[in-house]
């Protein structure tokens, strides 16, 4: 039993560390996303294409995020279950939010790829690919909420104690 508990703690610590590391490329991908977007000149109506460097950077950061997310998820799934223990409290929120950010982590790069191929074809991004940023933001929101859920309640004025 103790061995199982030790293994569980080890796996969940790796899960926690990787989960926090994943935040770095995730935030970076969000920050550089505006540079990787097709823009429209409102006066001329012309489409302004993003630079290939900006697209590559955004794609690389997105891919890194997805890969790290995959490793993070692996350690949560691999952690041994303890029989008779039902998830309760903040951990339940943390687990339930997976149903939002996990599909989001899969869909976001797919939609991004679709959007990129439409841009490369000289088309305006349309159809399901236009949902790329909405899906991405929903994923970011759910992922952030998931981190906050397991960290709550946070004593913000920690320097006072």
């Amino acid at each position: 039993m103790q061995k199982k508990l030790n293994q569980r703690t080890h796996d969940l610590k790796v899960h926690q560390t990787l989960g926090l590391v994943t935040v770095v490329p995730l935030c970076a991908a969000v920050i550089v996303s505006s540079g990787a977007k097709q823009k429209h000149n409102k006066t001329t109506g012309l489409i302004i294409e993003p630079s290939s460097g900006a697209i590559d950077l955004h794609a690389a950061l997105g891919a890194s995020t997805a890969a790290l997310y995959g490793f993070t998820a692996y350690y949560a799934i691999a952690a041994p279950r303890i029989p008779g223990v039902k998830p309760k409290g903040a951990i339940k929120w943390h687990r339930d939010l997976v149903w939002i950010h996990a599909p989001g982590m899969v869909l976001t790069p797919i939609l991004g790829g679709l959007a990129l191929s439409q841009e490369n074809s000289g088309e305006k991004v349309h159809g399901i690919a236009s949902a790329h940023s909405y899906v991405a933001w929903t994923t970011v929101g759910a992922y952030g909420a998931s981190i906050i859920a397991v960290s709550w309640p946070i004593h913000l004025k920690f320097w006072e104690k």
Partner: protein
Amino acid sequence: MRLAVALFLAAVAPIGLHAQSQWVLTQSTLTWHVVHPMHEVDGTSHEAKGKGNCSAGACDFLIAVQLKTFDSGDSNRDLHMIQTVRGGQFPMVIVRTHLAQSALESGVIDADLEVEFAGQTAHYSHVPLHRVAHGNDIQITGTVPATCSDFKIDRPSFLAVPIRNEIPVTVDTTWRPM
């Protein structure tokens, strides 16, 4: 004749006070308290078992509680607590104390506690326990000034900052004579 009876009662009264008696724990609330710069958490159990035996003017009390009965409101944290304190190998916390029977009559009991926890045994001297009588029952409250180092517990950390070494356990118990 009345004087003789009075003298007899006076003579046997100390014997009566030191008579053999047993106590059973009827209600309990044990709460550990953990402090981290970003968190303060309590875990509570109401499922302690306990008994007390008094004879020859001395009492021995024992309280035992299973670690898995502590609830901090988060099942993940509770499992982590059990892992950290080696609960897979040592699933119980056992507290013992030896008191003079007369100490049970005072409002504040000066207790020496022996605590078995996480495979270690620690002693806490002069722990003040407050006693309040409720009819036949007596309520005993107090705080065991436990620390992680007393039990060789590696302090869990969050964002690389460990919890405080102090993990006081507040005790609120109600005992009934058997």
